[in-house]
Every structure is written in structure tokens, then in C-alpha cells.
């Protein structure tokens, strides 16, 4: 522990947990935020819970917390905007910088970055609503079917919690899936469906380099890990660590660490992959603000690793303060 950290320990750290916002994932964010706030209070930190609204900037200016823990899901929280704002206010925050958040939040860009780094990811096309309107949906969808072959997964290019996501097994369902997707965003990522084991790997960096937590295997009762399966305890069975061969555990862990490194992330991230029998690991996406609810994956991984949520979050806060001081001192 250096002198700065020791000085921090002498006074109670004051942290703003930022949750809520106006994204479609507000409800999830509020629940994640409450959990983080309680965990930090349990570690003796002074916590102020704030929503993202017109009062936020004046409150941050007045309160001048030692750090901010953004637990905002969806746009603004994950697209870099709130982190840009915190930079403007010279406030340290937990997690990744604006540009890296923006890159990661854009699933097609993140996939491309990982592909360049040698990580396999399902074949896909990215199409804005305008493309269908201008070129004709029938022709574009026919080209999609020819290129990717069904089944495919249709999802918003930006977003989380599986909102607007559909698995399409029949061409007749494709238009409806596109509509559901465009209800949540203007650009669709249409990805080849990969059958296999769904695994989430969380990565934590509290100053000693990124460390992957035990992979969590996700086995939903229904067709896929949709919103209901994510946030209703009991509808999904989790295995932590995942029931995978040792070399596969290593492979998924390496994929998550590579994603964290290639995307330039800090603090915490969660990478989702599919493990195909005999065909390796396929990268799906990475989250810079992973869910922290009672049914979320990162807290399960922490528990399996024998780590306490509060202690880990407090360490992330201290690391964010330390990093900010290091940057300021350069």
C-alpha cells in the first residue's frame, strides 16, 4: 500500500453510486446500484446514490465525492457519455474510459476488434433500419439468409439484458425479429446462431492486472437466456465454474482476458462466449457495466472465487482513485 492509499484509509471514502438513468434497462440498473451501494456501505464507505438526471451535475459539483461507481446499464451508462462527463468534472470513477466503453458497447465494433486479435466470433452482418427501408426488406433479408443460413440471432447493435433479441429458426420469423430489434435501436446485428454452452467470464482488475473469475455456465430453462430468464430467480441454472474441460476453461478465460486487454478496459468487465463441442470458443460480446443484481453473473463469479462483493467493489473504488491520482501526477 502506498502513501496515497494509506492516507485514503485514514478517512472515510465518499462514493457516489450512479444508477437508474433513462435507458430501457433502468430497472436492472436501479437494482444493481442498490446492491453495490449496500456492499460499499458494508465496507465502511460513505455512499450517496444518485440517478442520472438534471440534478446530477450540480450534485456532483457540490458533493465532490472521492469516486463515482457507475452502475448504469444501456446507453449513456455504457456508451461512454457518463464517463466523459465524469472526466470533465475531474472525478475518478470505477471502470473503463469513455472511448473504450464506446467501442465495447458497439457490439459489431467489439467483434471486429476481437476478430483482429485472433478470437473467433460468429459470422454476422450489421444493418441499419434505413438499409431495409431504402433497399427493400425482402431482398435484404434474402441476402442475409443466403449469407448466414438460419438459424440466426437478431439483436440490437447496442444494448443489453437481451432486450430486442430473438433467435430466428424460420425465415418467416425474420421480419418480426427485425421489428422487435428496431424497437430498441436503429441498427441490427444479425449473427449466425451458434449452438453450444453459454458461458460468462468476469474480469476484475484492482491494480495488479486483469484477473479472470471462474466462468459461469448459463443453462436457461427456456429457449434462450432472455430478459425473463435473466431476472427471475429459478428460471436459469448456473454452474460456477462452468462444467468444461480444463483446457476449455483456460480457453474461455483467455478469451475474456484478451477481450479486456484488446478493448482497453479497466476495473471490471464481463465477456460472454459460446463454447461449441469440438469447435472452440466463439466470442459474443463484452459488458463494461456488468449487472450486479441478485441474479447477475459477476456476483456469482465473485462468490465462486471466494471473494466478497463489498470488498471487491471497495478495492475497485480505491483503484480508481489511485489511477486518477497517477494520471494527475504525470
Amino acid at each position: 500500500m502506498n502513501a496515497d492509499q494509506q492516507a485514503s484509509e485514514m478517512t472515510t471514502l465518499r462514493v457516489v453510486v450512479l444508477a437508474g438513468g433513462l435507458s430501457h434497462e433502468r430497472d436492472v440498473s436501479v437494482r444493481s446500484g442498490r446492491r453495490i451501494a449496500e456492499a460499499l456501505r458494508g465496507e465502511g464507505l460513505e455512499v450517496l446514490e444518485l440517478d442520472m438526471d438534471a440534478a446530477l451535475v450540480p450534485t456532483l459539483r457540490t458533493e465532490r465525492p472521492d469516486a463515482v461507481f457507475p452502475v448504469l446499464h444501456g446507453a449513456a451508462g455504457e456508451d461512454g457519455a457518463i464517463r466523459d462527463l465524469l472526466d470533465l468534472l475531474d472525478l475518478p470513477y470505477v471502470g473503463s474510459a469513455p472511448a473504450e466503453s464506446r467501442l465495447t458497447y458497439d457490439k459489431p465494433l467489439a467483434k471486429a476488434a476481437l476478430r483482429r486479435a485472433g478470437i473467433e466470433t460468429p459470422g454476422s452482418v450489421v444493418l441499419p433500419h434505413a438499409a431495409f427501408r431504402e433497399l427493400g426488406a425482402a431482398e435484404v433479408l434474402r441476402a442475409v439468409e443466403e449469407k448466414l443460413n438460419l438459424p440466426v440471432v437478431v439483436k440490437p447493435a447496442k444494448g443489453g439484458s437481451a432486450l430486442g433479441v430473438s433467435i430466428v429458426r424460420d425465415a418467416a420469423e425474420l421480419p418480426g425479429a427485425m421489428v422487435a430489434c428496431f424497437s430498441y435501436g436503429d441498427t441490427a446485428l444479425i449473427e449466425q446462431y451458434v449452438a453450444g454452452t453459454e458461458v460468462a467470464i468476469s474480469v476484475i482488475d484492482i491494480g495488479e492486472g486483469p484477473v479472470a473469475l471462474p466462468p459461469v455456465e448459463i443453462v436457461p430453462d427456456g429457449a434462450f437466456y432472455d430478459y425473463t430468464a435473466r431476472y427471475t430467480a429459478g428460471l436459469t441454472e448456473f454452474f460456477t465454474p462452468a462444467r468444461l474441460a480444463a483446457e476449455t476453461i483456460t480457453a474461455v478465460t483467455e478469451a475474456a482476458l484478451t477481450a479486456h486487454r484488446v478493448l482497453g478496459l479497466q476495473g471490471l468487465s464481463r465477456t460472454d462466449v459460446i463454447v461449441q463441442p469440438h469447435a472452440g470458443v466463439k466470442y459474443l460480446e463484452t459488458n463494461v457495466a456488468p449487472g450486479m443484481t441478485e441474479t447477475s453473473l459477476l456476483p456469482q463469479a465473485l462468490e465462486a472465487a471466494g471473494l466478497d462483493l463489498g470488498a471487491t467493489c471497495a478495492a475497485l473504488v480505491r483503484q480508481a482513485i489511485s489511477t486518477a491520482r497517477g494520471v494527475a501526477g504525470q
Partner: protein
Amino acid sequence: MTTESHGNRLDPHLARYAQRTHSMTASEIRSLFAVASRPEVVSLAGGMPNIAALSMDVVSRSVTEMLAKRGQVALQYGSGNGDPRLREQICDIVALQGITTHPDDVVVTVGSQMALDLVTRIFCDPGDVIVAEAPSYVGALGVFRAYQVGVEHVAMDEHGLEPTALRERLETLAAQGRTPKFVYTIPTFHNPAGLSQPQQRRAEILQICQSAGVLVIEDDPYGLLGFEGSIPEAIRAHDSDGVIYLGSFSKTFAAGLRVGWAVAPHGVREKLTLAAEAAVLCPPAYSQLTISTYLETQPWMDQVKTFREVYRERRDAALESLAQFMPAGTTWTRPDGGFYVWVTLPDGIDATSMLPRAVTARVAYVPGTAFYIDGQGRQNLRISYCFPTPDAIREGVRRLGGVLEEELELLNTFGTTAGPAGSAPTDQAAAPGPQTL
């Protein structure tokens, strides 16, 4: 780090839940209502009474006087069927709608929602069937679902529940050897349809039910909130044995006090009281005595008139802006009272799939599917004009018009605006929370 591999469903009580609990799940639609509560969003979803029109000084005086005179009673347990004086006052109120009854036949409940729950509890076994309008009150459907009661929807026309369709449905059920436990209807300023049954229609519905030997549950929270001055006569006014009447102070005074009532035949009211005692021992004495004092000491009917004007102004704003901003092919009801306009969207537009786009545009409504037990209503939505200011209503409807234009463009592009097959929300999870009832 542990290396033990075991499945975890994150809820150790999973095996203990009752069968009926399994449909209580998280839902995408319900989560969107979390955004609707933010001030940036014009919520045309919430059916919340406009309490701003109620003088807090008046309420404060009533509470102060009540505590001074009857504080010892107000803070104590009371009787299971409610405060005797309040029951007398309820008799005076329902008399405005032509109902003659005795205080002994009034059971005070925790909002009329509890009355609905008690009625269903004492009459219905799992698998029983009841008949309700299509669409019907989302909170009632929630109760029926919770008691595992089948709901047979009967169509409405511009005058509410359609008698011919009702008669045919009862005959069809009878032919199947099924007798519905009751017909549930909201005859006045219907939620969500905004329609009222004319007197002749009410008589016809009552006659059909009497002939078939079927009980009527008349849910009437909005009866005093008509914009045209006259107060409709209740169905219960014409049959004290075959109709159970449910009323509420939530819309005429304060929803937060949670006081409603049932007027029931004496045998039924005994059962209701016993069921109420099992559920809550007694309705809250504090709330009951506050209301009783308010009714006794304040010109409460003037307050009702104030509420009518508040809601009429908002109704007008909603109807004017709908006419201005809705695309061709959209139709809507024109309520003469109550809180709601029922909107039918152009062919092919799906209100449920459209909701995320609406929330992005900072406007919220309740999709029509919430008001049916079986996934109908995708082409409908309910607009509540009761709570926002008239300007906010206009802005909300303007935003909704923009969302619909985008949706029509999607329809034009893809030939559909419905999500993937099978995604129609038909379970409890798709219903909005208490502030959107």
C-alpha cells in the same frame, strides 16, 4: 478459488412455491414502466388520481379533528366489516346511484381491489370460470389469474358489454356444462375502454344474468366522476340479491388511504367479512375514520365536482391532441367520465412491440394486451389522462404520434410490426404495476 461444480438456481425456495406462483416472472414490458416514472417521460400509463386537486389543508384539518375526537379508536383494531359510521355514510353515497342498502350489508375493504379479491376468494375454486368484458380491468384479471380462474371474455360495442354476445357466451358455456361463477363488469366509465353502458343496456345485461342464474359483480370506482353532470344509476339499484357492488374512495378522495367497499346480499357479506378477517383482521381504522370525518365535516361533493372539472379538462386535451397527432386509421373512444381513452391503432401496428420505441421517445402507455387474459389487444393501447397536466398530455400524444409514424414506416418496410411469434405477453408478468392500474 473453489473448484466444486454445482447448479445454482439462485432461489432456495423454488421447490416450495405454489403452482400458481410460477407465472410470476420478470418481464421486459413491466421493466419499461420503471422508466415511465421519470419526470422526463410523459406517462400516459398511470391511472393515478390527480391528488394535486385535493386541498392538503382540508385533509390536514380532517386528520387533526379525527385524532382529537376519535384517536383512540383510529389507532386500534376495528371490526372486520368496517367502521359502523363509515358504513352508514357509504350507504348515503351509493344512494346517489340509486342503491338502497343497509349499513350491515356494506363491507369496508382495503381499496375495492381487496373487495374483488375477497369476492373471487369466496366464490371461485381453481378451474372455475367467470365472464368479463373484453378488454377488462388489469387488476381484476390479476386477481382471477391468482385464483386460477378461467376468464371468458365477451366483446364490447360503443355502449359497453354487448348483450347478444353475453347471452351467446352464457349459452355456449351452459351447453358445455359450465356455469360461470359471475359476470364481472365495469358499467360506468370503463377501465380501460372509457365507455359507459346506457340504462337500457344495464337492464338488458341484468336480465340476461338473472335468466341464466349468474351473479353480477359491478365494479364502479368512477361512477361519480361523470363530466355531464348526471350520475348513472347502478345495476345494483335494480337487484339487491343478484348483484355485488364494489366502490372506492380512491378516485373521489384519496387513493393512498386504501379504502373501498362491497355492498352485498347478507349471506355473501357474512362470508366476505370472515374472508376479510382472515386476510387483514380489519380494514385500517385510521384511514376509515379519516374518511368518515372528512365526509362529515367537509363539502366532499364539491371536491368531487372539482375532480370532475380537472379530469374533464384533461380528457379534452387528450381528445384534441389525439385528433391532431394520430395518423389515419387510428380510432379512439370518447369518455364522458373517468380516466381513460382506449385507442385502436392502424391495422398491423402492434402496441406491445412499439412500447420500447415510445419509451425512447419519452412517452409511456399501457399496451392493450394487459387488459386481456389471452393475448388479445395487440392493436390497442390505453391512454390515461387523469394525472399529467393538459400541456403534458398534448406533448405526450404528440410524441406518441411521432412514434406511430415510425412504426408505420416499419410496417411499410417489413409488412409487420409484431415481434416474433409467441412473444405476446399473456401472463401476470406482462401486467403493469400498481401505479399503472
